[in-house]
């Protein structure tokens, strides 16, 4: 994957993006969220991101740490500050805003 600098107000070049997607089981909503996320990351954070999918049905104790209520929830662990985005990530614009990849209007 060759880095292409096509991001409007992109992240720092070598910044590592650590993302966690919390789901509860392999629901349609969860699968959609994962697909949406991967698409956005490929487009805006190629080679810089790491996605960890956590199934709360398998690891319920992990919900506490990131204060997860809603599923799916995407948590941006790095870079700081922590951001949370809930929903199936179908609204790309909102996801970009939520991840600070686009300035809030």
């Amino acid at each position, binding site marked *: 994957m060759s880095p292409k600098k096509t991001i409007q107000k992109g992240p720092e070049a070598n910044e590592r993006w650590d993302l966690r997607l919390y789901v509860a089981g392999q629901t349609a909503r969860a699968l959609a969220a994962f697909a949406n996320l991967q698409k956005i990351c490929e487009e805006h954070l190629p080679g810089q991101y790491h996605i960890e999918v956590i199934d709360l049905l398998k690891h*319920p104790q992990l919900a506490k740490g990131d204060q997860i*209520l809603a599923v799916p929830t995407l948590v941006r662990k790095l870079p700081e500050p922590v951001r949370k985005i809930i929903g199936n990530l179908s609204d790309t614009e909102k996801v970009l805003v939520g991840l600070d990849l686009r300035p809030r209007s």
Partner: protein
Amino acid sequence: MVKTRKATSSVPRLEKCPTGIAGLDEITEGGLPRGRPTLVCGAAGCGKTLLAMEFIVRGIVERGEPGVFLSFEETAEELAKNVASLGFDVDDLVRRKKMAMDYVRIERSEIQETGEYDLEGLFVRLAAAVDSVGAKRVALDSVEALFAGLPSEAILRAELRRLFRWLKDRGLTAVITGEKGDNALTRHGLEEYVSDCILFLDHRVINQVATRRLRVIKYRGSKHGTNEYPTLIDEHGLSVLPISSLGLSFPVSQKRVSTGVPRLDTMLGGHGYYLGASVLISGMAGTGKTSLAAAFADDTCRGGRRCLYFSFEESPEQIVRNMRSIGFDLENWRKKGLLRFCSVRPTLYGLEMHLAAIHKLVRDFEPRAVVMDPITNMMSIGQIDEVKAMLTRVIDFLKGQGITSLFTSLTGGGSSLEQSEVGISSLMDTWLLVRMMESAGERNRLLYVMKSRGMAHSNQMREFVLADDGISLIDVYVGPGDVLTGSARLMQEAKDQAEALAAGRSEQARQRELEREAASLEAQASSIAARLAAIEAERRLAREAGRERQEQAEKEKRGLAAARKADRARSQA
């Protein structure tokens, strides 16, 4: 888990889940509905969180039912610290795997909503917590925080409905707290989802005194108390004080206790008050109510029994000093630990705190007699009805313990003497009335028994005198005109005495006169008798002389006869 309680009918009764909160289980007749959610609503600071926490902690400690506390407002550490002051060691319960705590924090600013979602995360967390301890009880405090934290109300409402359904399906007894709304029970209409049982907590300030109250708004499938019950939070946590929880089933005693005034005992059928009775002494200022109370306290202690004295006007030292002046050495009993004073201004705290203080002291000290002097001061901190309700509870409580209670009540200048201000006379078994009688430039005390249930009591008024050696009751002078007391009575008595004396004297004189007369008559009688005797003697002499003459004459006659026959008779003559 299914315990059938007295399965007389085939239809299973609603099973209750005791909260362990004093009083609450009484008004709900056993506790909250088991396996169902209960909504606890009220304004900020009314004790919702405490109620939820006590429900969980007491469930573990008293019933051995593990619980989960899910907090949306405070962290577990904060909560543990807050309730530590009430003697709950939450950390220990968590360590022993009896209790699970989870703090659910939602920060609106951190959350971006993008598309569909649900609250399965919350369910997962709750389920994990429930499973980790095998919980039977759950507290959610307060779910409404979700409304502030999550953008989509529609999803939230659907999820809440699912949550309450989920709790029910798992057979969890849940307490859900909610903030009071403007025109609804809760701000976000939680009552819509929780329809089995709703408790309402209230904290309002009347006459600058804050009062907590609890009301059961709804309890589906169960009888419950419908009133607003005073509630208090003290070092033992929350307690609800049901007015009539004790009912009217007191143990009654035939034993009597002395009033401390011998003649008053006599007035009350000869033996004083009934053990465990409630006694009211009412009267105007300065009529000696406190002195009568002190006499009772003194006598109780003299018998080696403990007495608890609540004084709402005077300090213990002042009472001790004042009562020493009429011969009661209360300090002595105090030192021996038989008498304990509790002197507080009524305005120090609200009525239910007073009630709680009374309960606590009585439980600690275990007195056989309680004096409250005067109860009318309570009027300054509550409405008449509230004070009456509170005193009803005090009397109920004391009677239930078989403690004799004596209350004094100050009658205001304007009101009728036979009307006790707090209107509690009907609650009392014995009612003594002390009044002032003004006459001849004096005020004197009069005491009488207004009523005394279950004993033949005197209907007479007594003059009530406070002297150096105690209290004494003196018969009043009931003359043809009026009832006399004080110096008027003394004067009347002196006058009576003088009259009696004078009457006595004239009687003696008359006696002597008669004696003299009798003596003189006797003298006359003896002289007559003497004369009679003389006359009799004379008559006898005369009779004898007459007989001698007759004999002489006979003799001469015979001589004469002889002489007539011969000269011999003549010579014989």
